């Protein structure tokens, strides 16, 4: 298996770490493990992984700090594992550079699907596609034109920018903060009213053109993601 895709699993609980290790190995990945943040950083530096699975609650650091430190020099995607009720920590870790999250307890099928999606995106990163297609939806970035099943959807510039951000994230979750900062500007990170209102109108317009409202998934308390 050596030389295959390398995954670093960081979790302080041995049974969980071991179960993930065995399962991922059986699925064909090369697996490294670390029990805390400092071991994770050392191992990632010695043998850079292709993906990191990171428990949000580590004994020596929180997920946001580890994500930020890894993100400084590591391009590999970071998948967070969090428990219910840790929305605040989850958001901070996502803002700090983590790519996606799973909430415990999750099925192995769900985990493997997330891992595959993250790896696929990181391999095809910087493809520089000009037209993003999601289901029936086609978003022409340079011409700022959105079509649903061939019909043009008329969006305001803000609605287009929102959709563009979601499309460029390729199914990764975007926190409220990221969307507000990227679409409206750094001074608007707390203006949730703006985001809620424009998101509602964007969904209305997509729905009028036959695209289900739930194509933009609501990650309650966290943000949004475009369903592939």
């Amino acid at each position, binding site marked *: 298996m050596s030389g295959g895709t390398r995954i670093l699993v960081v979790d302080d609980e041995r049974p*969980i770490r071991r179960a993930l290790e065995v399962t991922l190995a059986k699925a064909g990945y090369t697996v490294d493990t670390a029990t805390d943040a400092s071991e994770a950083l050392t191992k990632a530096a010695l043998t850079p992984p292709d993906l990191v699975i990171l428990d949000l609650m580590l004994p020596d650091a929180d997920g946001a700090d580890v994500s930020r430190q890894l993100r400084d020099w590591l391009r590999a995607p970071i998948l967070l594992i969090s428990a219910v009720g840790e929305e605040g920590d989850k958001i901070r870790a996502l803002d700090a550079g983590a790519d996606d999250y799973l909430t415990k307890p999750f099925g192995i099928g769900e985990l493997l699907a997330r891992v595959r999606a993250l790896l696929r995106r990181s391999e095809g990163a910087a493809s520089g596609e000009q037209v993003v297609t999601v289901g029936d939806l086609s978003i022409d970035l340079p011409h700022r034109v959105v079509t649903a099943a061939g019909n043009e959807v008329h969006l305001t510039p803000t609605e287009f920018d929102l959709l563009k951000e979601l499309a460029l994230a390729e199914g990764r979750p975007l926190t409220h903060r990221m969307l507000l900062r990227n679409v409206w500007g750094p001074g608007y990170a707390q203006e949730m009213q703006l985001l809620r209102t424009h998101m509602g109108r964007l969904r209305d317009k997509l729905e009028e053109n036959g695209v289900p409202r739930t194509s933009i998934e609501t990650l309650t308390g966290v943000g949004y993601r475009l369903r592939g």
Partner: protein
Amino acid sequence: MALTQSDRPAAGRRPEASLLRTLESSRATAPAVAAALVLLSTLVTALVTPTVPYEAAGVIYLVGVLGVSSIYGLWWGLVTSVASALAYNFFFLPPAHTLVINSSSDWAALAAFVLTALVTSNLASRARSERDEAARRAAEARLSESFATLVADADDLASVLPTLASQAARSLGATDGVIHRGTPSPPERRGAVLPLVFNDRWMGELRMIEPPQGALDTAAAERVARSLAGLIALGEERERRIHQQVQAEALSRSDELKTALLRAVSHDLRSPLMAISTAAGGLRYAGLDDEDRELLETITEQTGRMNGMIENLLDLSKLQAGAVSTRADWIDLRELVEASADELARRMPEGGAVDLEFDADLPLVRGDAPQLQRVLVNLLENARKFSPPDQPVQVTVRRRGSRVDLSVADRGPGVTEDEAERIFEPFYRSPERRDVPGSGLGLAIARGLAEANSGTLAVERRDGGGSTFTLTLPVPAGRAR
């Protein structure tokens, strides 16, 4: 703070003023000093009259008048003026050694002298009382400052009261004093007792030991009393604040403890489940036969169920411990309801339809979105469980003036009138529907979370059978979309 003599305003601070102060302190010396000064003026005048005309030499007496009135005040000044006039007339105005005045110019000289003496003594005594007043104010300011420092530095008010009383009483001329804070003294003791009143509140009284003879300087006493009363009120207020702060800190520590404990318990309970479900998931590559696969399915399914129950129990404990903290932000209700329906579809994939209906132009509301989603998912789950599979659950969101109603209506068996409140009690299960699985916690948690977000949750019978659960949330004033 040690009390020193220099804090006493009656004692001289500046050495050069000490002679004056000593003279002032006993009025008994006034006649002697006046007489001595008149005599001295007469001698000096006698010495200078050979060279100075006697009409002009009268000015010398004014020095004495000035001296006496500035030391002993207006009345002794006037007495000295009269004595000086008589002496001047007797010794120097011709005919000498009589009190007879012959010439009109001598009358004029005497009249001018008396007038000047009167004005002089008046001015001098006024200057004196102004000086005294200024000194008293300065002393009081020093006293107030020392009071304030004492109160500010003290750990508690009771420990500084003796020093305050002592300083205040001495400033008013008593030997010592005590501040008494029980009940006011009977009226007959009033002379030696200064009531301390702040904003019409009786803060206590200053009881003076060996108070000065005669009446107290009432204006000064009033000022000292006011300042003392104010400081006692301030000290009391400070003690009350400190007490409140200590209580609040203790309360927040116990809340933090509860939250930390619940978090630890939730982690400890969920971790083994997480390990079981991950390990079970790993077995899917183990080449199992159908029966093994079924067993594995049971493990996965039941761990999920157990996780749900632990979640519910923890939520209920948090609500009952008052350890639920809400993070309010703006919420789009349509989005919240759609996300909740989505979540229900994930949890009960074969559950049946949910119809959604929204008023146009719903306002944004404020609340903790994950908590309110929990309320809605619990209501939807409950409705779906009790409704026949072919009957859709109806969700309606309506604006009603300053609030919004989110109704979840089912076609289940409905609730009886006496059940309407009991179904929100933890662990309550309808006796007729024991066959429906559940822990009896969903509605209790839903109501607790609704209330934690300033909302209400109630149930009523639905026309045509079934129940309607309504979550009502306030619309923030003036911020509606």
